[in-house]
C-alpha cells in the first residue's frame, strides 16, 4: 500500500495501534545530498590495448562460463585473438591493477584460450552482404591490412586485399616462427576474415604486377605493406656470401619449413627478430650467438623471448658492435668493437659509445643481420608524404593523397602486432567516414577508449550502447576487501629438450579449469559484474532487481544517498555525485 491513510475520527480507528499500511508513501529520496549512479568506467587494460580489445568484458564472459560469448566479444574489435594471445607484448598486463595486489592477470593466456576454444567448436562465421557499398583496396595482408579488411567487411564494404607473397598473413606468417605462432592458428583466423566476404589476391605485388594507377576503380586504398626490408648495418663486407638477412631466413623457414645455415651462427641485433632467428637456428640444430651493441636492459626484444632464448641455449654477448666482415677459409670473421653505455638518446636508452682500441674478432659459419626493418617505398604514388622511414599520416590514417590511407608498420615506429591491428581498425572507420561524408576526427574522439589512442569500433557501429566513462579506474579506487591473493595461472611450457627439437609451440593453451580460475582473479575494473554487493548492503532496499537480477537502477524515490554502495563496489562501477537541488 503506498497511499496515505488518514482517519477522520476515533470511530474509524481500530482499538489498538496495529499497523494498517506500509511506509511506501514516504519518499526518503528527498533526504539525499549525494546520489549514487551506475557508471561503467574504462579499465586500464582496455585503455592500454592498442588493438582496442574490451578485455574486462570478455573475461566476464569467461567467468560466466560463456567462452563462445567471450569469443564473439573479442571479434567485435579484433579478428586475431589467437595471434595476439601468442605474440602480443601485452601492455594490458603491465597496466593491470591486479599487478598492484599480487600478480597481473594473464590476459594474453585468456585471449589465446578463447580463440583456441572457439576454434575447437568450429564456429561458423557468416558472410556479410556488401551490395550497397563501395570497393576498397588494401595493400598488404599483414595484421594491419587484414584488420582493416575485416572491419570494412563488417561495415558492408567490399574489401580486396592484395598480397605480394603466395600466402596471406604478412609478418605474422613470414616473420614470426611457428613455435611462437603456429601456422594453423594463423590460417584459421585469416579464413574467418575471408568467410565474411573479404577477397584476398595473393601473388600480386603492387608496383610490379599491378600499378597503383590500376587501383583507381577502388573508392579508397589502404596501404599496409609493413616494414619487411632488412635494415643494413652499413659496414664493409655486408654484401658478401653467407651474410643473410634475418627476415629472409625467417621467411624461408616459414615458407618451406627448413633452411640451411652453418654450424656456428652469429646474429647481429637485439630485437624480436634477432631472438626469433637465434631460436630458429637452435631448432635447426645449430649454435646461435647474438651480438648486441647495448646491454640486456636496453634490448628491445620482449623479456619472455630473451629468457626463453637463453634457456634454449642461445648465447648473448652484450656491448658488442660489428664494424666489418671478412671471410677466411669459408669462415666469417666479424670485426667488433666493445661498447660502453653513455648518455641517453631520443629513445630513452643510454647511447652506446665505442671503447677505443677494443677491436676483437668473432668467428662464425653464418652471419645473420637482424638489426631492424625498413619500409618498401618503390610503389608509393606521387604525393604520399614520408618522413624518417615511415609514411606520414593524420590521426585517422589519412595520407597526403585523398582517398589513400596507411597504417601498420609502414606508417609508424611503434612496430607491434597489436598496434597494427588497431590502426587497421581505425583506417576502416576513417574510410567509412571519408566515403559517407562524416568528420572522422570527431567520430574517433567519440569512440576512444579512455584517453585513447585505442578505439572501439563497437561503439562506432552501436552508438549509445555499452556506454563507458573515459575515466580509467586506478588501483586506489578499488576495494581490496573483497579479494584474496591467489596464484596467477600461466601457460605451461613444454620441457626444454622437447622444445628445441622442432618448431612446435613452446607453450600450451590454458585448460578450461585454469582459464576459469584465472578469469576469477580479474577485478573487472570499472565494469559491473553483478556481484550484488550494492544490493546486499543497501539499507533502504533501493538497488532494484528485475527477474532476480540487478539491472543497474537505483530507486531514487527511496535512496538516501548514504554512499555505502559506492564504497563497497569492489570495482568502482558506481559513481557518486552531488544531489542537485
Amino acid at each position, binding site marked *: 500500500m503506498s497511499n496515505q491513510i488518514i482517519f477522520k475520527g*476515533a470511530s474509524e*480507528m481500530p*482499538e489498538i495501534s496495529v*499497523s*494498517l499500511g506500509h511506509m511506501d508513501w514516504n519518499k526518503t529520496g528527498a533526504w539525499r545530498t549525494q546520489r549514487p549512479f551506475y557508471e561503467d568506467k574504462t579499465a586500464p587494460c582496455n585503455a592500454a590495448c592498442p588493438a582496442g580489445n574490451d578485455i574486462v568484458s570478455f573475461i566476464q564472459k569467461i567467468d560466466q562460463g560463456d567462452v563462445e560469448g567471450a569469443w564473439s566479444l573479442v571479434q567485435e574489435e579484433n579478428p586475431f585473438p589467437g595471434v595476439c594471445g601468442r605474440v602480443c607484448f601485452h601492455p594490458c598486463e603491465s597496466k593491470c591493477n591486479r599487478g598492484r595486489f599480487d600478480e597481473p592477470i594473464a590476459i594474453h593466456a585468456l585471449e589465446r584460450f578463447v580463440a583456441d576454444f572457439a576454434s575447437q567448436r568450429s564456429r561458423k562465421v557468416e558472410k556479410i552482404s556488401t551490395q550497397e557499398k563501395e570497393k576498397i583496396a588494401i595493400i598488404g595482408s599483414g595484421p594491419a591490412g587484414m584488420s582493416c579488411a575485416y572491419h570494412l567487411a563488417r561495415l558492408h564494404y567490399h574489401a580486396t586485399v592484395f598480397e605480394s607473397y603466395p600466402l596471406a598473413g604478412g609478418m605474422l606468417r613470414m616473420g614470426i616462427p611457428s613455435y611462437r605462432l603456429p601456422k594453423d592458428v594463423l590460417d584459421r583466423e585469416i579464413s574467418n576474415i575471408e568467410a565474411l566476404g573479404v577477397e584476398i589476391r595473393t601473388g600480386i605485388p603492387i608496383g610490379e604486377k599491378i600499378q597503383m594507377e590500376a587501383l583507381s576503380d577502388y573508392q579508397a586504398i589502404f596501404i599496409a605493406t609493413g616494414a619487411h626490408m632488412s635494415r643494413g648495418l652499413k659496414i664493409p663486407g655486408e654484401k658478401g656470401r653467407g651474410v643473410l638477412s634475418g627476415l629472409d631466413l625467417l621467411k624461408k623457414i616459414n615458407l618451406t619449413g627448413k633452411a640451411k645455415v652453418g654450424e656456428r651462427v652469429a646474429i647481429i641485433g637485439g630485437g624480436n627478430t634477432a631472438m626469433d632467428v637465434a631460436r630458429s637456428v637452435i631448432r635447426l640444430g645449430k649454435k646461435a650467438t647474438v651480438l648486441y651493441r647495448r646491454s640486456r636492459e636496453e634490448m628491445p626484444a620482449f623479456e619472455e623471448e630473451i629468457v626463453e632464448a637463453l634457456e634454449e641455449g642461445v648465447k648473448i654477448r652484450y656491448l658488442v658492435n660489428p664494424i666489418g666482415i671478412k671471410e677466411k677459409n669459408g669462415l666469417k670473421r666479424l670485426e667488433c668493437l666493445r661498447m660502453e653505455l653513455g648518455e641517453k638518446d631520443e629513445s630513452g636508452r643510454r647511447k652506446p659509445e665505442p671503447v677505443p682500441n677494443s677491436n676483437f674478432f668473432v668467428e662464425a659459419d653464418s652471419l645473420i643481420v637482424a638489426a631492424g626493418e625498413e619500409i618498401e617505398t618503390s610503389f608509393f604514388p606521387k604525393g604520399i608524404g614520408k618522413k624518417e622511414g615511415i609514411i606520414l599520416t593524420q590521426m585517422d590514417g589519412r595520407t597526403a593523397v585523398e582517398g589513400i590511407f596507411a597504417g601498420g608498420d609502414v606508417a609508424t615506429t611503434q612496430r607491434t602486432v597489436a598496434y597494427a591491428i588497431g590502426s587497421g581498425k581505425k583506417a576502416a572507420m576513417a574510410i567509412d567516414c571519408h566515403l559517407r561524408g562524416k568528420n572522422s576526427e570527431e567520430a574517433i574522439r567519440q569512440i576512444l577508449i579512455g584517453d585513447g589512442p585505442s578505439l572501439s569500433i563497437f561503439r562506432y557501429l552501436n552508438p549509445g550502447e555499452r556506454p563507458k566513462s573515459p575515466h580509467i579506474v586506478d588501483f586506489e579506487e578499488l576495494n581490496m576487501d573483497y579479494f584474496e591473493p591467489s596464484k596467477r595461472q600461466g601457460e605451461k611450457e613444454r620441457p626444454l629438450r622437447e622444445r628445441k627439437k622442432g618448431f612446435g609451440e613452446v607453450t600450451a593453451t590454458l585448460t578450461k579449469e585454469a582459464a576459469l580460475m584465472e578469469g576469477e582473479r580479474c577485478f573487472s575494473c570499472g565494469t559491473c559484474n553483478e556481484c550484488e554487493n550494492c544490493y546486499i548492503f543497501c539499507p533502504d532496499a533501493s538497488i532494484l532487481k528485475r527477474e532476480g537480477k540487478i539491472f543497474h537502477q537505483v530507486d531514487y524515490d527511496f535512496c538516501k544517498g548514504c554512499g555505502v554502495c559506492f564504497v563497497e563496489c569492489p570495482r568502482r562501477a558506481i559513481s557518486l555525485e552531488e544531489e542537485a537541488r
Partner: protein
Amino acid sequence: MSPQGHFPGGGGAMKKVITGNQAVAYGAILSRVDVVSAYPITPQTTIVEELSELIASGRLRTKFLKVESEHSAMAALIGASTGGVRCFTATSSHGLAYMHEMLHWASGARLPIVMVNVNRAIGPPWNIWSDQSDSLSQRDTGWIQLYCENNQEVLDTILQAFRIAEWGKLPVMVVLDAFVLSHTSEAVEIPTLEEVDQFLPPYLQEYAIDTREPMAFSVIATPDYFLEFRYKIQRAMEEVPQIAKKVDDEFKSRFGRGYGAIERYGKEGAEVLLMTSGTVTSTSRIVIQKLTEKGVSVAGIKIKRFRPFPSEELHEAIRGAKKLAVIDRNLSAGVGGIFAQELRASLYSREERPPVFGFISGLGGRDITPELIEEAIHYTWEHPRPEEEILWLGLKK
C-alpha cells in the same frame, strides 16, 4: 489433592472446603487458561504452587512460564495474549508495583488478561498482611478492578472476569485479602469444566498474531492519534457496567449466584450507610445487623467493582441516606482513603451530597474488629459532619 478430583468431568459440581488461593487456582483452570506466567510472592505463593500441580497433571494444554520477576510475568502475558490465547497471572504488593509499567501496557494494548492480586501492604516496613494500597495504587492503569468478600466470590469472579475482559477488551484485576481470604478455608461450590464451558466461550480476539497477514502491534502513535486511542479506552470503560451486568446476570441464571457492582444490604431508608470492600464487609454485615436490632438507622453497601467506579449504582443505592461512612483499608498519603476520595468525587456533581466520613483502618493487616466498625458507625451517627478529613480507627496515637 488428587488431580482427578478437581475435574469430575461427567459428575455434577462439588462443594469443597478450600482457601482463597486454592479457589483462585480453580478459577483459572476452569476457565481453560492457556498461558500462566507468575512469580511467587507472599501471600500469593500457594496460587502459583496450586497451579503448577494442576497444570503438571496435564489434563489441559496450559503452559506455565516460571518467569524471573513480576514485570516479566506481565510482559510474557502481553506477548502470549497478543499471540491469541487466554492468559492469567497472580501477584501481590511489591510484585504488583514492579509490574506497574506493564499494567499500563496491557490496557493500552487492550489485552483481556486476568490477574488476581492478593491485597498486601507495600513496604517499607516489610509487611505481608492485608492492605488495599497495592491494588488501589494501580487505579490509573486502565484495569477493571473487582473486589471479593469470600472464597466463593473469588472463584466466581475469576470466571466472570475472563468473560468481561474478552468482551470489553480490557484487562481485569480480581482482588482478595491477604491471609484472611488467601489462606483461610471456606466452603466453595466448584462448578465442572463442562458447566464453565457453557458460560465461558472459547477465546476469541480481533487482533492476534497471524503470519499470513503480518501486522505490527503497538506501533508508535503521534499526538495526531494518541488522544483518540485513549478516548477509546475511556469509552470502553464506560461500556463495562453494562457488560458486567449482563455477565453477572447470566452467571446468576446458570450458577445461582450473582454479585452486582455493589450490594446494598440492611434496612431500607437507613440514615447512615456504611461502605466497605473485601472481607471487612463480612464483619460489617454482622455489626450492622446487631445495631439495626438495637434501633440504629444504619445499612451497608459492599463495593465490589472499584474500576470503573460504580457511580450510577451508588447514586441509586444512597438515595435517602443522610450520611455516608467509608472504611478504607488503604491510604493515599496526602489525601486519605481512596474509596472515600473516589466517592466524594463521584458525588460532587449531584444535588444531593450527603457528607462522607472517611475512616481508615486495618493497614498492614491490623484486624478491623466489630468494635472498630461499631465505633465508626457511632461516630457517624453522632456527628453532623466529620471533624477531620481522615478518621483513623484503632490508631495508637
